[in-house]
């Protein structure tokens, strides 16, 4: 038989130990706050804005300017994609959107060329001065189709979003590095709403309409003038490039980044002719079955 003190110890000690578990940690734990200055001084001097600095020893403006003229070739048979909906058969607002059939602009090929391909420099060339933003450009929507389908603009340039339809459109952009634009544009608004991108994007961004989900377009804001969209027959031109070697990005909505770094050497005073071949197989979904048309409700 154990003594009383052992009894007490056996019962009390575990209880005390259990109670002690509650100590320490949790929301009341010790924390520290360290101040990080906004801009470390060393970084401030090294990071002079590229536009404001004098031309660096690298690509020299003194080297002169040249141009690029080119064509995006579509290798393969031109696909005949059926329109998103036929004339008069628009799933929403048929009276307005059904005035014309809505073309499927995902792959547009004419005379062996591929349209709506973005060719652009991912970054402004070093040593470029500040080039002022040009005049406002127009981004319209008619018969529930964005016009143009692919658009390049400069950072700071005003894009006037217009509406040529008798119904409202809710233009919604999805940029990565800018704030999204999400505004309803009044019917038949020819004054438009101003849309400006403050920062350059590295890849074209999609523009849609929240009311008419089939409406799609692509924007690419850049902070230099060396970007182009291939025309309906695949041709494009980029002027006044500083002489030297440049790496262009080539992008198409169905193929994504077709070329991450297309090297082009520009000589002063000359026009370089290039051809960019795009195989049909590079355009995703091209060789698959035709996309299923989802029947949208017809009560609108």
């Amino acid at each position, binding site marked *: 038989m*154990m003594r009383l003190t052992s009894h007490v110890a056996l019962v009390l000690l575990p209880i005390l*130990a259990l109670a002690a*578990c509650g100590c320490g940690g949790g929301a009341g734990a010790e924390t520290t706050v360290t101040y*990080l*200055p906004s801009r470390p001084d060393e970084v401030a001097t090294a990071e002079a804005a590229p536009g404001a600095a004098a031309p660096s020893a690298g690509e020299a403006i003194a080297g002169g300017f040249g141009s690029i003229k080119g064509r995006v070739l579509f290798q393969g048979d031109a696909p005949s994609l059926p329109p998103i909906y036929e004339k008069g058969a628009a799933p929403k607002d048929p009276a307005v959107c059904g005035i014309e059939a809505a073309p499927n602009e995902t792959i547009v090929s004419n005379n062996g060329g591929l349209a709506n391909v973005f060719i652009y420099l991912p970054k402004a060339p070093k040593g470029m001065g500040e080039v002022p933003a040009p005049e406002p450009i127009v981004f319209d929507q008619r018969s529930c189709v964005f016009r143009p389908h692919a658009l390049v603009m400069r950072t700071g340039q005003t894009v006037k979003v217009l509406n040529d339809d008798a119904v409202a459109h809710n233009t919604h952009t999805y940029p990565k590095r800018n704030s999204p*634009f999400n505004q309803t544009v009044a019917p038949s608004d020819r004054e438009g*709403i101003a849309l400006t991108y403050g920062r350059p994007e590295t890849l074209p961004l999609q523009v849609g309409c929240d009311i008419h989900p089939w409406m799609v377009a692509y924007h690419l804001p850049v902070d230099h003038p060396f970007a182009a969209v291939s025309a309906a027959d695949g041709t494009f031109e980029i002027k006044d490039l500083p002489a030297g070697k440049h790496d262009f990005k080539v992008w198409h909505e169905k193929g994504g980044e077709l070329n991450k770094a297309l090297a082009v050497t520009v000589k002063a005073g000359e026009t370089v002719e290039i051809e960019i071949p795009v195989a049909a197989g590079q355009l995703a979904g091209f060789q698959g079955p035709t996309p299923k048309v989802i029947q949208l409700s017809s009560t609108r």
Partner: protein
Amino acid sequence: MPGREFSMCRLSLPATCLLLLTLAGCAKNPEAQFGWRDSTEQLIPDARKAVQKTMVDTFGTPQDLVAWGRLPVEYGGQPPGVAPAETPEEPADVTTSAEPFGHQMQLGRLVYMKNCLHCHGVAGDGNGPTARYLNPRPRDYRLGVFKFTSTLAPERVTRDDLHRVVKYGIPGTYMPSFLLLGDAETRAVVEYVRWLAMRGEMEKRIDDELADYSLASIDDEISKAKNAYEAAKAAGESAETPPSRSALVKKASEEFKTYLAEDYPEAVDGTADFIAENWARAEDEASVVFPKVARVADDAASRERGRLLYLSDKAKCYTCHGHTGRGNGPATEDFWPKPGSTEKYANRGLHDVWGNKLAPRNLRLGQYRGGRRPLDVFRRIHAGIKGTPMPAFGGTVLKDEDIWDIVNYVMSLPYEPEVPTAGQPPSQVAASSRH
């Protein structure tokens, strides 16, 4: 009594076991950690380490916070080494200068950990332990998007908006009112939530900058290369075998080294400036929506005008909110594309920018999540609801008087009997009369 008496010695073994069990309490409490976004986890290891290092350098951990001066956050007190800004109107306050730097941030963190963490998560990702039981889910701050704001559509949320939400809660959701929290605590937790939102935005935007170094883009390249290889083989031409995943990861790591040295600091800087600019601009007076005209008289004529606008092609409210305001409009039956993509959601109906299914508000309940003042309803229509398909009608499509008419109509709906409207499809009528 015959038999052995109960020996106390038998207790010694169970008692010792119990004692040993209690030693579990001696272990250190696990510390809260900021979880990483999926997009960070999906980067190649070198890129991921760079992002994580940047985040820890500029924001710290929940135990060792970093108060970055570049962000428009009031940490409380005077930063060390920075002279206090003295203005003639506000001489340096003796009492506050005695407080250590970062005291408001510490208080905010404490209040957050005690009250908000279990739903909103340590990093404000809306995925705390209780979140799985809640519908709608708690807000994920990490996109920098808050729904119920007083600002224009492109602007961020203001401190006042967050203050209101903390004080009055969001009816119809699990966000309760913290009316009794106390002014200093509420202000502190609002600052901390803003800081968490900026942190989340920073992580997301840097991940976006490094999209080329993500495993998703590597998988994309592999599939493209495979397609090209198959196509070439089918055409009978010779083609390179598609590269292996590890080879591509190695290549990407090499490229990342150059990127890290040349472009990464600029990308981080640009992102930080962008975030700081936007959050600071939200506090400007010009960012806040105020009607230019007082509320139009709430009479039958105004409500009828509002009803006609509601059903018009200009505003098209009925497409989502239904012909009688039940939130069962035709848009809830469509398949909608995901934001910024042509791919559609797997299920019908509308979604918010966090990927959750979102039903348009049933306007007949008299439940106003963003506030029931006429000003609040005006703001919802004028500037839309950020992160949701509710568009911004003000300044472009609808004049202020039009918006007031719709406000009068909408705020009368809970008290009016439901009457099928002309042009309402029969299926909608049947659905609404069921309730």
